[in-house]
Each structure stands twice: as structure tokens, then as C-alpha cells.
């Protein structure tokens, strides 16, 4: 595998540092920077000629694993890495389809996985599941009626694929490799464009969902929501309740921005959400991430808002760009994906010092400041993404479309 250039290494370390120091925060910024970095990785990657795509995949995986480890809470980073891996795999398949030996080449890459399985005793379950899809999934009735036994088909094609690989390699070495790299970069550029346009794409759907004289409730601040409401304001008149979103009070910023748009805005405390919910027609929020089961990672306080909305039968709508969709399932949703922020947002330093027992130097008063809430899929009515509006039960389809199961684990 080709060595990364020194300036690439510098760019990677620079980004890692920024992630660790939380200088780059938020899904949008993290996603954008990750895409740019991965594009650089691909551009500067000088692949070996055998198994072209797998060397790109390895390069992206290595960098990706480091990025994810730097800031596990920024799920968008992992999402983008997996999107790029999926793009690489897709481009490889479509190029193989366009040249000769369509099925054999795909079998070849799967058999590479299988032969790796035999070598490495401990393999991630997701990789095995993906391998199972292709070889062990015997009950496909289409295959059952073949006279040749199914595993034999896989073995036979691997040997013939090996020969065809040799032939194609020697004859169209450079053009095939260049084509792959070029199409991967094209795919990444499309991804970057999607990320940049996601707010606009989501906002386009605003008029379908917000009706005349409706009352909308939200908590905290969301860029996507601001653009969404701005778009709806052009043709509808409605009013907005903004809960302030302690302890960061970003709701104050949103309220001012909405008022500047001449929208009737009311600012309320977080505790007043339940009291006001009976007057509200719809709750719309922005998400930090969406998990594969349709669960939502959102700023703290939003689970309570979702419960209040469910209690009053108010639709709970989540706005999320596709880069926020994470192919992972929350194993331990209320604990796993959360970050404790600095206590200075809650208590002044002098105040907290008062409560430290001087003799033992142990604080009597503890303050916790989690950043995120997990909202289970049952409480969400609708997801509005840049690819349209979807039910939470449909999220698995989007995951299957944009991600490959082999990439769930980045090790």
C-alpha cells in the first residue's frame, strides 16, 4: 500500500487535533472537513494494481478509524467515512459491470473476504453477516434449482476470476485503475455537494409540512430548522415557540433570528414545554445524528419534549441531512453516545469550590452536564431528510442504500 505524503499526514494530524480539542464541533462541520480530508487521501493514494479498490478501502479505513477515535461523539465523521467506503465499493462494482466478467469479479471480492475469514479467527460479526449474504444464503430459491451445488459455484468462479483478473490487469492496467480513482473522486464530490446543499434541500419541503396559522415548537438552535422556517415564512404565516435550551441557551439566539425574519416568536423556559404543548400544532427539531433503528441523538432536553408531544398527540418532526444517518444500532442508547460538557455552563467556578469538603478535597455537590439525549423511534412521527420525508420504520432502507454492511466496523 502506498505511503501517505507528508503533507497529507500533516493534514490528518491537524484535523485529528481539531477534533480532539472540539475546535471542530457539530455534524455539519465535522462531516464537511472529513469529506475534504478523505478526498485528499484518495487523490494522493497511489494504489497497487492488484485489487485496486481494496487498497483504497484500506487507506480510507485506516484514516477513518483514527478520525472516529478522536471524537466518538461526532457520529457524522464515521458516517462520512462509511459513505466513502460504500462509494468505493459501488464504483468498483459498476466499473466491473461495464467491462467484462461481471459476476465473477464481484464473487472474487467476496471470496477475498471469505479467505480472509479463514485466516483470522476473530472477525467482526458485520463482515461475517455480509459474507453470509453472498455465500451462505442458500435459500435463495433461484439458486436452489441449479444443478451445480452453491458453494462450488463460488469456488469455481474464484479460480476463473483469478485468471480473468490477470488478463485484464495486464491489458488495461492503467486505464482501469485511473477510471476507478476518477469515479471515486466524482462520487466524493457528489457527496460533498449533497452535504453542502442539505439545508436547502430540506427547506424545499417546508411548504408541504407547515400550514397557515400553525403553532410550531422547538428547543435550542438548529441551522436546518432556521432555513426550514425561513422558507416556509415566504408563503405562510405561523408562529413559533422556542424553548431556551439550558444551559447553553441557544434558544435565545434562534428566537432573535426568527424575530428578525418577522416571525411571531415566543421564548419559553424548558420547564414550560409541557404546559405550552396543548397549544402547539407541531414540534420540529434538528438532530445531531439518526441511528439505524430510527432513534435520534439530539441536544439534551429533547427527549422530554418528545414525550410531552406524544402525550398531547402532537406530531414530532425531525430534520436531518443524510450525512447524519448512522448505520449503527444503539446498544446502550442512554449511556453510550453522550458527552459530558464542562460544568462551567452550570456552576460558576467559585460556587462549585464552596461545596468541596476542604478536609478531603472531595466535592459534596456534583454537577453533570450531558450534551445529548436519545429519543427512541416510537416518539418520532416523521424524518425530513434531503432525500424526502420518511417514517422512522423506513430508516433501515436508507441505511442499506447508502452504507455497506462490511463497513460497520472500521477496524
Amino acid at each position, binding site marked *: 500500500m502506498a505511503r501517505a505524503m507528508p503533507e497529507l499526514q500533516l493534514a490528518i494530524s491537524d484535523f485529528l487535533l481539531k477534533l480532539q480539542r472540539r475546535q471542530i464541533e457539530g455534524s455539519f462541520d465535522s462531516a464537511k472537513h472529513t469529506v475534504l480530508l478523505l478526498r485528499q487521501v484518495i487523490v494522493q493514494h497511489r494504489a497497487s494494481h492488484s485489487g485496486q479498490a481494496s487498497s483504497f478501502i484500506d487507506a480510507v479505513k485506516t484514516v477513518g478509524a483514527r478520525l472516529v477515535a478522536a471524537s466518538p461523539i461526532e457520529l457524522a465523521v464515521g458516517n462520512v467515512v462509511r459513505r466513502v467506503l460504500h462509494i468505493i465499493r459501488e464504483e468498483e462494482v459498476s466499473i466491473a459491470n461495464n467491462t467484462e466478467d461481471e459476476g465473477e469479479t464481484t464473487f472474487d471480492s467476496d471470496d477475498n473476504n471469505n479467505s480472509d475469514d479463514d485466516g483470522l479467527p476473530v472477525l467482526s460479526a458485520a463482515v461475517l*453477516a455480509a459474507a453470509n449474504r453472498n455465500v*451462505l444464503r442458500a*435459500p*435463495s430459491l*433461484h439458486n436452489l*434449482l441449479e444443478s451445480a451445488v452453491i458453494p462450488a459455484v463460488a469456488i469455481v468462479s474464484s479460480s476463473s476470476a483469478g485468471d480473468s483478473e490477470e488478463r485484464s490487469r495486464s491489458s488495461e492496467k492503467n486505464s482501469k485503475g485511473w477510471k476507478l480513482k476518477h469515479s471515486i473522486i466524482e462520487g466524493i464530490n457528489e457527496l460533498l455537494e449533497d452535504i453542502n446543499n442539505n439545508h436547502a434541500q430540506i427547506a424545499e419541503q417546508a411548504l408541504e409540512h407547515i400550514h397557515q396559522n400553525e403553532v410550531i415548537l422547538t428547543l435550542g438552535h438548529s441551522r436546518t430548522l432556521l432555513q426550514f422556517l425561513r422558507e416556509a415564512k415566504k408563503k405562510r404565516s405561523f408562529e413559533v415557540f422556542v424553548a431556551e435550551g439550558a444551559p447553553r441557551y441557544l434558544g435565545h439566539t434562534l428566537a432573535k433570528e426568527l424575530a428578525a425574519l418577522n416571525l411571531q416568536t415566543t421564548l419559553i423556559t424548558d420547564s414550560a414545554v409541557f404546559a405550552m404543548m396543548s397549544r402547539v400544532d407541531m414540534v420540529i427539531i434538528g438532530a445531531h445524528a439518526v441511528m439505524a*433503528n430510527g432513534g435520534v441523538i439530539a441536544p439534551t432536553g429533547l427527549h422530554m419534549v418528545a414525550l410531552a408531544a406524544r402525550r398531547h398527540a402532537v406530531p414530532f418532526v425531525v430534520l436531518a441531512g443524510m450525512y447524519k444517518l448512522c448505520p449503527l444500532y444503539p446498544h*446502550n442508547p442512554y449511556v453510550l453516545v453522550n458527552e459530558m460538557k464542562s460544568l462551567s455552563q452550570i456552576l460558576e467556578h467559585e460556587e462549585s469550590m464552596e461545596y468541596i469538603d476542604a478536609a478531603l478535597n472531595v466535592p459534596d455537590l456534583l454537577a453533570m452536564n450531558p450534551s445529548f439525549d436519545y429519543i427512541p423511534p416510537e416518539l418520532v412521527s416523521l424524518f425530513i431528510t434531503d432525500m424526502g420525508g420518511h417514517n422512522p420504520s*423506513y*430508516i433501515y432502507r436508507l441505511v442499506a442504500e447508502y452504507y455497506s454492511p462490511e463497513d460497520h466496523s472500521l477496524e
Partner: protein
Amino acid sequence: MCYVTRTSALEYEDIEVGKARLIERGEQIGDISLKARKTIAMLGQDFIRDGSTILTHGFSRVVLSILKLAAANKKHFSVVCTEGRPDSTGLQMAKEMVAIGVPITLIIDSAVAYTMESVDMLLVGADGVVESGGIINMIGTYQAAMVARSMNKPVYVAAESYKFARMYPLDQKAMFPSSRQVDFHYPLPSAVQVEFSSRDYTPPQYLTLLFTDLGVFTPSAVSDELIQLYL
């Protein structure tokens, strides 16, 4: 079964060839089943956290493999299993748990709601997974899933992909009848009718996730997978 018998070899004149092919297919499915259980165990054991209590109903080798792998990975958890009348599945499960050193509590089937508040999840296997995303499993599963849902406990199902079936039951009677003699341990008057069925259907809204060898799915994803399988 259809996997084993659906082969063009059966159209051959030679009975020996047909026989050999059937045996071969049978062994293949045994192999596939074993590998599938390993994959499911790896996927499922992620959901078992330290200090959790798992309620299980019925005896499933797939569930057993998940619990064995979690125990082998040094996770500390405990298991509550139902007696499982009339099959006495509880006894089998209890023996297995003792063998791997996991604390096990046995409860009678009626005590499911009573214990549900102190467990963290319900984990069951399945005899069949149907098109709606629901499951067919030992009788009592529907009950347990309903209680779990009403108390907001996740219900996880572990099933291999060859258990996916192209049926869409609309009620409990829509399945093939499967009966099991129940011994009530005392003589019943002859006029008393006894309900014999040994399987029930749990609709998808009571299930949280399904662990299969093709990956982890929400119940709504099952029909998609089914279409791909039967294409």
C-alpha cells in the same frame, strides 16, 4: 425442509444420486445453521451489558449461543427463564446456564409480568419469522412480548435467516396447527375442553430488533430481506 428437497436431482432416474444429493443438502444446512448461530451470537452479545438481567422464554440454541458468547467475553449478567410448560424448556435452560456459570432464576410462566420490572430485556428465539416482521415461537412468547412492550423493555429476537417464511398471519388461528399434549396432573371431567396449541404468533409492533445472520434488523426490514431471499 424445502431447501433440502427442492433440487432438480430428484428428477433424475437414479435413486442413489437423488439420495446422495438429499443427504448432501441436509449436511449443508446443518453447516449453514452452525455458522449462522456464530454470527448471531457475535451480533447479539453486543446488546448484553454488564449488570443486565435477561428474561428468556423457551429453549433456543441461538439464544443459548448468544448468552454463552457473552459469558465467555466476561460480561456479568443474570438470566431469568420461564418454566415453559408444557415443554419444560426452563429446566433445560437452567442446566445450561449453570454449566456456563451465569446466575439463573426460574419463574413460573404466570410470573412474567411480576418479574418484568426487574429485567432489562426479553430475549427469545423464533421457530419462524413471518413477512410482517412478527415471529412464531413457543406459546407464551406473545404474552411476554406484550408485557415487555407495555413496560418499555426491549424485545430482541434471535433467528437465522432460513427461518424467514412467506406467510402473513392475521390472527393466532392463521398458522398451521401444532399441538402438544398438556398434562394437568389430575383427572379432568370429560366435558372439559383443553387448548392444545404449542405455538403463538407475536405481531411486529411488540418486537424491537431481530438478530439474524444477515445482520440486525428492525421488524419492518424483514419483508425487504424476504423479498431478496425469494427472488
